[in-house]
C-alpha cells in the first residue's frame, strides 16, 4: 500500500510540476513596505495536531495587535510537520497557505512550487532574529524559502540511571556493558541515516549536498568512505552487534530499554516512564585503537512555509502573519506549551530555555552536531544501509570497507552523467545578471570550445569555463573579468586553458 502511495505521490509531483511550468515565476512574498495590506484574508494553516489550538490563539493575537489592519480568518488543520510536503505536493493549489514542516522537505517543496521565496524584508527579519543554523536550514542556493520555527530537531541520549550510572554515560563501551549486564536494551535507530551519520561526523567526516536556487541538487561533497569513515563504521559495529541493540528511537523505557537516543519530543513520555531515574546527556564517546571519538549528530529545524500566492498583497499579508508566528513571543509560547526549542535568538537567551534539561543536553550535543543542510531524498535510503551492512558483515576491516564502498558508489550514481556531459565545458558566472547558478552550453571544434550564444555583458561581469559542471577543471584560474561592455561569444582553448572574448 505504501509503495503504491509513494508511486502515486511521485506522479502527483510530476503533474504539479507540469502544472507549475506555465505559471511562470511566482511573485516573491515579503511585500513592499508601505503597501496597503488592510483587509480580511481567509487563510488555511496546517499545524501539527498538538499546536492547533495554540496557533488559533496566536492568529487571534496577531489580528488584534498588527499595525497593518490585517484580519486573518484562519482555518487551522492538523497536519503533521512530517507529512506537510507529501500533502502539499498532492495538490499545491488546494494545500495550506501556511504550513509547518521539517526542514528535510524543503527541496521537494521548492521543486513543486509549494513554498514562496522570501522577499528582501522577510529575509532581513529572518536573518536578524534567528540563529545561523536555522537560517541555513531554510536556505537553498542563496535564497531563503521559509521562516525558522524551532531549532530543536536533533537527538541526544536519555538513560535510566538505575542501569547506567552517570559516571558511565560518557562512554559508549561502558553503556553497552551496563545494558548487556542488566539485560536491558539500547534503543539507537542506526538503521536510519539521520542517526547513523552521527558516528561519521564524530570522526570528522562530512557529507554535504549542494543545491542551486531552484532547489535542484547539483553535486555532493562526501567522505564517509575514508579512513575516518572506517573508524566510524567500527563505532557503529560496536552498537549494532551488541545483543542489547534495538533499532528504534521511540520512548522504549517501558518496553525494556535503558538507553534511548531520541529528541525533545519524547521528553514528557520518558519522564513519565522512569521519573527521577531519567538521565539526559549528550551522546557518549567511543574508542577505536586507543583514540576516543565523541558521537556527532544532525541538528535540524522546523520551518514555516508560505505557499506562493497569486495576489501579491495577500502574499505580503501572509508574510506578516508568518513573521509574527515565527517571532520571539510565539516561539516562546510553543516552548512553554510543548517544549519546542526556539530558533529565535532572544528566545534562546530566555532563562526558562537555558535551564531546560533537554535543551541543555541538545545544546551540549550541539558542539558535535552538524546543521542539517538540504539533503537529496535518495540519500536516506542509500545511507541507512550502512548500519544494516555492518551488522550483517563479519566485522573485518575489509567487510566494513566494502559497506562504505557500496555507499559511495550509490551516492555517486545519483549524479551519474553521460561522458559527453562530463567532458563538455560550460560557461558559468554573472552573465545576464545570473548569480553563478546556470551553466551556459559550449560547443567544441577540436580543442576550441565556443559558447552557443553571444551574450551581452557589462564591464565587470565575471565568469569561468568549467568541465562536467564541477570545479575540478575550470579556466581561467581566477575569474575572467570583462573589461569593455559589449556582446561577445566566449571561447576557450581547452589545450592551453586560454579564455577569450569574440565580439559578435
Amino acid at each position, binding site marked *: *500500500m505504501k509503495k*503504491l*502511495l509513494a*508511486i*502515486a505521490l511521485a*506522479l*502527483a509531483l510530476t*503533474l504539479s510540476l507540469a502544472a507549475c511550468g506555465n505559471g511562470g515565476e511566482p511573485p516573491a512574498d515579503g511585500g513592499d513596505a508601505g503597501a496597503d495590506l488592510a483587509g480580511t484574508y481567509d487563510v488555511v494553516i*496546517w499545524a*501539527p*495536531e*498538538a499546536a492547533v489550538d495554540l496557533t488559533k490563539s496566536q492568529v487571534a493575537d496577531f489580528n488584534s495587535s498588527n499595525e497593518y489592519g490585517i484580519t486573518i480568518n484562519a482555518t487551522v*488543520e*492538523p*497536519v*503533521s*510537520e*512530517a*507529512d506537510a510536503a507529501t*500533502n*502539499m505536493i*498532492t*495538490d499545491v493549489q*488546494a*494545500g*495550506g497557505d501556511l504550513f509547518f514542516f521539517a526542514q528535510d522537505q524543503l527541496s521537494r517543496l521548492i521543486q513543486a512550487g509549494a513554498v514562496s521565496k522570501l522577499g528582501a524584508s522577510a529575509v532581513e527579519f529572518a536573518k536578524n532574529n534567528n540563529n545561523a543554523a536555522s537560517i541555513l536550514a531554510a536556505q537553498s542556493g542563496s535564497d531563503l524559502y521559509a521562516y525558522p520555527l524551532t531549532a530543536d530537531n536533533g537527538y541526544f541520549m536519555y538513560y535510566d540511571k538505575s542501569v547506567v550510572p552517570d559516571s558511565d554515560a560518557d562512554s559508549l563501551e561502558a553503556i553497552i556493558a551496563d545494558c548487556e549486564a542488566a539485560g536491558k536494551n539500547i534503543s539507537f535507530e542506526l538503521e536510519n541515516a539521520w542517526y547513523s551519520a552521527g558516528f561519521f561526523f564524530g570522526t570528522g567526516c562530512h557529507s554535504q549536498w549542494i543545491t542551486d536556487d531552484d532547489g535542484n541538487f547539483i553535486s555532493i561533497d562526501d567522505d564517509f568512505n575514508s579512513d575516518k569513515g572506517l573508524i566510524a563504521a567500527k563505532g557503529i559495529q560496536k552498537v549494532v552487534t551488541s545483543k542489547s541493540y534495538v533499532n528504534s528511537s*521511540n*520512548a*522504549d523505557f*517501558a*518496553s*525494556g530499554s535503558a538507553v534511548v537516543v531520541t529528541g525533545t*519530543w*519524547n521528553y*514528557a*513520555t520518558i519522564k*513519565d*516512564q522512569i521519573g527521577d531515574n531519567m538521565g539526559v546527556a549528550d551522546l557518549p564517546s567511543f574508542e577505536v585503537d586507543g583514540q576516543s571519538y565523541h558521537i556527532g549528530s544532525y541538528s535540524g529545524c522546523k520551518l514555516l512555509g508560505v505557499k506562493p500566492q497569486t495576489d501579491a498583497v495577500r502574499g505580503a499579508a501572509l508574510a506578516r502573519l508568518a513573521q509574527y508566528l515565527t517571532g520571539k513571543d510565539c516561539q516562546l509560547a510553543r516552548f512553554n506549551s510543548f517544549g519546542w526549542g526556539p530558533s529565535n535568538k532572544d528566545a534562546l537567551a530566555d532563562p526558562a530555555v537555558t535551564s531546560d534539561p533537554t535543551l541543555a543536553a541538545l545544546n551540549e550535543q550541539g558542539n558535535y552536531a552538524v546543521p542539517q543542510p538540504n539533503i537529496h531524498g535518495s540519500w536516506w535510503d542509500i545511507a541507512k544501509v550502512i548500519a544494516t551492512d555492518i551488522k550483517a558483515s563479519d566485522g573485518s576491516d575489509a567487510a566494513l570497507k566494502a559497506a562504505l564502498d557500496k555507499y559511495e558508489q550509490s551516492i555517486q550514481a545519483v549524479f551519474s552523467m553521460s561522458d559527453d556531459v562530463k567532458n563538455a565545458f560550460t560557461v558559468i558566472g554573472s552573465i545576464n545578471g545570473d548569480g553563478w547558478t546556470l551553466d551556459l552550453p559550449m560547443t567544441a571544434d577540436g580543442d576550441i570550445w565556443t559558447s552557443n550564444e553571444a551574450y551581452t555583458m557589462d564591464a565587470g561581469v565575471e565568469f569561468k569555463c568549467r568541465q562536467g559542471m564541477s570545479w575540478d577543471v575550470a579556466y581561467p584560474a581566477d575569474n575572467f573579468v570583462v573589461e569593455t561592455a559589449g556582446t561577445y561569444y566566449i571561447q576557450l582553448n581547452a589545450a592551453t586553458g586560454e579564455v577569450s572574448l569574440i565580439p559578435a
Partner: protein
Amino acid sequence: MSNNKHHMGMKTLNRLSNSAIYTLLVIISVVWLIPFVFIVLQSFRVESTYQVGYVVPHQWGFQNYINLWNSDFKRWYLNTFIIALAAAVLQTIIVLCMSYTLSRFRFKLRGPLMRFMLILGMFPGMLTMIILYRVLSDLGLTQANAVPGLILVSVASSGMGYYVSKGFFDTIPKSLDEAARVDGATRLQVLYKIILPLAKPIVIYTILTAFMGPWGDYVFARYVAFGTSAGYNVAVGMYSWLTNDQINNMYTTFCAGGVIVALPVTILFLCLQKYYVEGVTGGAVKG
C-alpha cells in the same frame, strides 16, 4: 475379543488424532486472535498513553474512549459510515441490475461488453487515481467535500463487479422467469419478485462487501481528503495519530479507535455470516 480390542484401538487413534487437530487449531486461533486481544486490552489501559512492553493494563478505564469521543474521530467515523452506507445501497442496486441484465437479456454487443469490462477490471484502480483526483477537484468534491467524492468513486465503477452475482443468477432456472412473464409480470417484477428472493445469499454478500470496502480504504481516501480533517475517513484520520509527534499521546486512543472501527463490521458479519459463505460459493456453481 480381538474385534473389541481393534475397536478400542480405533477409538484411541481417533481421540489422538482429534486432540492433535484440536491442539493445532487452538494454537492457530490463539496466534490469530492475539493482535485483536492485544488491541482490546490496550484500549482499556489508562495509566499511560504510549507503547509499553506488557499486554495486560495495570489500570483499567474508559479514558481512551472518552478521548476518542472528544477528538475528530466522531467526524471521521460518521464520514466512513456515510460512505459505507451509500456504497452499500447504491453499489448493491447497480450490481444486481447489471447482473440481471447480463444474465437474462440477450442484446447486441453483450459478449464484447462483458469481455471489455473483464479487461478493464484487470487494470489496478490505482492507475486512475491522479486523473480521478483532478476530476473530483474540478467538481469541488475533494478535501472537506471528500465524502460525496468518495461515494461517487466507489459507486461509479461498481457495475463491473457483476461476476459473482451473474454466476449465481445463471443458476436460477430460466423457466421461472418465463412462468412469471406468462402470468404477466414485467422484467422488473421478475427481478424483485422471483430472482431476488431466490438469490438472498448473493444480495447479502454484495451488501456486505460494499459496506466493508470503505472501512479499510486508505490510499484513495487520503489522497482525496488530504490535509483536511473534516474529510478524513477513519483509516486516514487514525493514521495521522501515528506520526512521531503524536504517537506517545495517541497510542492507546488509537487502539480504542481500532476497536470501535471493528465493531459494526464484526456485528454485521456475525449476523450475516451464514449468507456470506453461501454467497461466495453460490456464484461459483455454474459459470
